[in-house]
């Protein structure tokens, strides 16, 4: 995760600020497969039916891929303040929230973004 916060006082009346957080998250299971129980002949698959006949085989080799998680998140704000006098200033900012889901699975593709614009006036007293 990286984060940055910067303030630039461009003039006596105008200053800019930027804040940003980048978070990268990854997770996965190491690939595995189900070993045959001891004492079962090699040509008899696990879990025979009630008559003792082979009923099936299970393939877990895909779990390593299925379990992958890979999110990249960005949260950033860019804004400016303009002083009207010693106590009053106008402000404006843009805030971006962005998530990139590169391995969608249990909750579906969670990729999404939200952008918010804000403006107003602050008075100190």
């Amino acid at each position, binding site marked *: 995760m990286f984060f940055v916060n910067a303030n630039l006082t461009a003039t006596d009346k105008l200053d800019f600020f930027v804040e940003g957080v980048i978070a990268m998250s990854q997770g996965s299971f190491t690939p*595995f497969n189900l070993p045959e129980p001891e004492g079962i002949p090699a040509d008899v698959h696990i879990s025979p039916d009630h008559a003792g006949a082979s009923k099936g085989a299970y393939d877990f080799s895909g779990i390593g891929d299925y379990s992958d998680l890979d999110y990249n998140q960005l949260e950033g704000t860019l804004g400016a303040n303009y002083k009207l006098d010693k106590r009053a200033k106008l402000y404006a900012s843009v805030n971006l929230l962005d998530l990139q889901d590169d391995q969608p699975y249990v909750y*579906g*593709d*969670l*990729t999404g973004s939200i952008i*918010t614009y804000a403006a107003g006036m602050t*008075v100190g*007293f």
Partner: protein
Amino acid sequence: MTANAKEMTMRKHTRFLGAVVLLLCWAATGLAGDDESFTEGSASVGAHYGDFNDMPDRVGEYVNLDGLSDLTADFVLDLVGGNTDTLYRVYLAYTDAATNGFEFGLDNPGLVSVDFGYSSFVHNLDDDLLTNLQAREGVPQPDGTFNPGGKQIYHTDNDPLRRYWVEYERFHGEVKVDLPFLENGVVRLGYDDQHKQGYKQRMTIDHCAFCHVEGNTVRVDQRTKKWLASVEGTVGAVSANYDFARTDFADLGGENLHRWKNANHPVNGTAGAEFASRLLFEDVTLPYADGADNEKLTHNAGLKIDLKRAGSLKGSYTHATRENLKTQVKSKFDAYAIGYAKRLNKDMRLTARFLAYETKVDDYFVNLPNFRADVPGANNLDFDWNRISSANRKVYQGDLNLGWRVGKGRHLKVSWRRQTIDRDAMTQSQTTYQFTGLADNEIAAYMPSEAYANETVINRLKLRYDARLGLKGKYNLAYAYTSVDKPFMNPTAMCEESLAGTPSAHVDTGPIGRLYYYQRARYGNGTNQPNQAHKVTARGSYQLSPRTSVSGYLTWAKDKNDEMNLYEFQRDMLTPGVNVWTAPSDRLLFTLGWAYNKVESNANLCPPFFDG
């Protein structure tokens, strides 16, 4: 008036109110009171507008998405004021109809102080699509291909387009009155009210186990109210306090109902009698996800004696009772604590603490219909049992801490903790079902197995060294070693083995006839708790120049459990991070940071598959 019209009207009122507050504040600038009073703060009034793409719920986990695309007024007022006798603070914040709050504080030292506050926000929740729960057995064919088999797992999301969210609201207030006739005498009265409303997803399972999982929508309406009262004071060398709290939790979400379907074989379809006899219920509508209504009473009394040069002695006793008003299940909690602190010399300080507590929940008799009572030869087994709560425990904990100033700006701290946890439910969790004989129909009796352990003993040693790097920096290093005898685990929790001369656990041609799941002997122990743990931490900060400083940290931990019978559990963690603050010029300021966290662990897996 519709809900939308009400919201529009409220927004207009909010914008108007915000503008009025701002103009009043600007106009009042410079109109401070007399010499003894002051007012400081700021007021902001503005508006915001937003939009989203794709799925906003996870990226905007705490963003109120309703009305995000409308132009919405917002304001913040934060002011502090007072005079030589009284201080007050007012904080108001309004972002939107669901995200707002206020705080109000008034403090008149020696007389009374008051704090009130309210906050609300939205928490967006995920929708589990359940699509990972989709698997079916493949039956091998002579040509190497597979045909669909009978064992399978599938899912149904009954509300796939639903958005889930919960709105949190909290109000809290406290009044503190000083008692002028008693040294340090204070009486406090408090109230805390938390309310959660919304909708979330709950799962239900059909048939014998997890083979058909359904996602359902349930309404959330939970309220927690807490009342507090306390008194404290000092007489001579003795200080005492008493606290009382009552907490009520109510689930007001209403009854959730679910239809459990006919129990049919997933492939053969009609084997109902054979199938249903193994279930407690089928083809019926029943309530589920029913929350508790709890009432909790807590009493706490404390005493502190100042022994002057001999040190100081502290002790406390806590007694709490809780009752689930729906089930009448009660629990009680008793805790005793005593502590002693003494300065051994000008550089060394010793503290010793002992804590003992017990949690005891009523046993609960689980009354079940007999297993396959209507099936001839099934032995009509009675599985009624007395549940001993896994929350039950007796805990004894002792701590010794020695702080030593080893030099100017350098400190060493040595801490040792010993804790024992006695859980009486552990014996029950190891109950297994064993055969009493080998003849057909001579079915198992269920017998408690030998207790693995009731008692966990934890010993932890910590060392910490703090030092300064001249006048510009400081750092600390710490190491902790924890040794656990019989850590909490689920013994004989997983993996089956063949039984009583049968070639496998799944055939009915052996001498004991058909096997049921409850008869299969599990043997694998499972836990994610270590019996040995090492943890190293390092932190430091340094001022490189008047305009630049840097700080960093590193945590490394290695846990393992090598006392299980199936596998050795390991967990490794590494967490480094760096922060830099720099101001290249008077007009430019940067704060930069990097953090990294890696956790790697293992577990043993014995997947159950439904054998229809």
